[in-house]
């Protein structure tokens, strides 16, 4: 049945995002879990939560794998089954999807889905190397193609095909930094100007420093229940009514089109159909702006505008807080920050706040339906979820 809730979010937590010196990933995850527990006094975490799914991309950062059990332990949830999901920057989007499988299968009534990454204690070249592991080793990494490089290849192609401009990319950065300035948990809480964005140093031309998301530490989590029992835990649940996930070639070079992410389009189609909603029904969205060009491509892949018009959508201010469809009210990966494993459920956290009227200065008035779009690597994984106020 279209629009039938698959699972319901009854609580959510987010650590501070930023440079969290002296903390381990597991300790940051505990911060997010604590907030989720405190938001939901009717829940007895140790008794009620039956499984944990956690997104985490890189064991290289802390020389620590086995994140499922580690996170369950430090969130005070031993001895539940704890499973790590890894899909690069979509690791916790996939954790959310997996949690929905657990609920929808009938195996679990209440589960936690979350994500974590601790990155800032490593140097930029090290992080660049670790992130590149999300791309194809023998044909991309081998030839010195970095992660920003892959999105730069998309940007150059998009500019060539549609006339998208560096200024339009900069509009994304300015918007998301403004939104981040209103988010007390964002890594960067300061506005920037178009001139600053355009004059920043090149990372992978045409992408400059302000076109890139931040290297950030952070964690996020959601507590999900079967929709039928959600009201037992809260008067204001948020229902997940659509879920899509798709894959594509690990090597970006093998794809037919470099100006669109096929996995994201497929995931969006699944989610829209399941939810029985159209792009114009979405009141607020968190999309994967790992680079500014990625947000422009997301507008097009999600149907917020036609192919090739994403740059204009940004330039015309249609996705600002006061625009037709506010996107990345949290500040996005660009300003809130991008602790890669934590990003998917951090996006869901913002939509949870929006649909329960808790987004404070960033609140989109009367938002009823929200969407998250979370991309792994250069688009070999994408997850899209659609949410409705309960």
């Amino acid at each position, binding site marked *: 049945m279209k629009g039938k809730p698959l699972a319901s979010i009854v609580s959510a937590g987010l650590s501070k995002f930023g440079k969290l010196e002296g903390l381990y990933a597991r300790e940051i995850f505990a911060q997010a879990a604590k907030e989720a527990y405190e938001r939901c006094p009717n829940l007895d975490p140790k008794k009620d939560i039956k499984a944990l799914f956690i997104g985490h991309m890189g064991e290289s950062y802390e020389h620590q794998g086995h994140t499922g059990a580690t996170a369950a332990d430090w969130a005070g949830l031993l001895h539940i089954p704890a499973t790590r999901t890894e899909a690069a920057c979509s690791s916790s989007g996939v954790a959310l999807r997996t949690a929905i499988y657990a609920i929808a299968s009938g195996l679990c009534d209440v589960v936690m889905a979350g994500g974590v990454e601790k990155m800032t204690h490593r140097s930029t070249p090290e992080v660049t*190397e670790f992130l590149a592991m999300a791309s194809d080793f023998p044909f991309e990494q081998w*030839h*010195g193609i*970095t992660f920003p490089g892959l999105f730069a*290849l*998309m940007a150059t192609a998009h500019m060539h095909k549609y006339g998208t401009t560096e200024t339009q990319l900069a509009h994304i950065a300015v918007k998301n930094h403004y939104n981040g300035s209103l988010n007390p948990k964002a890594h960067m809480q300061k506005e920037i100007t178009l001139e600053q964005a355009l004059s920043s140093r090149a990372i992978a*031309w045409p992408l400059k420093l302000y076109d890139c998301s931040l290297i950030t530490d952070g964690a996020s989590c959601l507590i999900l229940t079967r929709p039928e029992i959600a009201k037992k835990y809260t008067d204001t649940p948020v229902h997940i009514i659509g879920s899509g996930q798709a894959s594509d070639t690990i090597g970006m070079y093998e794809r037919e089109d470099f100006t669109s992410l096929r996995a994201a389009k497929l995931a969006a189609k699944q989610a829209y159909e399941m939810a029985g909603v159209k792009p114009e029904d979405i009141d607020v969205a968190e999309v994967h702006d790992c680079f500014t060009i990625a947000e422009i491509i997301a507008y097009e892949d999600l149907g917020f505008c036609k192919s090739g018009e994403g740059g204009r959508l940004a330039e015309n201010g249609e996705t600002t807080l006061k625009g037709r469809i506010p996107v990345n009210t949290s500040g996005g990966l660009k300003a809130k920050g991008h602790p890669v494993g934590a990003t998917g459920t951090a996006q869901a956290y913002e939509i949870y706040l929006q649909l329960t009227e808790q987004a404070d200065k960033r609140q989109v008035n009367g938002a009823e339906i929200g969407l998250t779009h979370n991309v792994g690597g250069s688009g070999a994984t994408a997850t899209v979820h659609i949410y409705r106020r309960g």
Partner: protein
Amino acid sequence: MAEQPQAFNIEQFYKSIKQKRLMGGKCLKCGKIHLPPRPLCDNCLSTEFEWIELPKTGELLTYTIIHVAPIQFQNMVPYAVGIIQLENGVKVPGMIKDVPFNKIKIGMPLKIEFEETSQTQKWPQWPRYYFKPV
């Protein structure tokens, strides 16, 4: 002529690169050309292939100039990388050399050259090809 490699896989592809040849696998069932060669055709699931030497010229589809590189490539920045489409439609990513950055244009013809590789096996000194203007 160099000895024909047998297994259809990535290692054999780079062994051919060391011999300055760009070799792909052609599926005997559906005709799809794979670069790199694969042991299982993703299109028709066949495991029967033949080796074909791929054309060494193509057209630039997109490119970027890398300024921040992973540790292994830091001493080379800034450098250009791009994706070319060979005359038979196969796409190949790689570095673009021997051309000023401001002369690189989408649609320009490029040809594949082979690097002289060092004896060490340490990445990134494995055999590599690159693109240069025709």
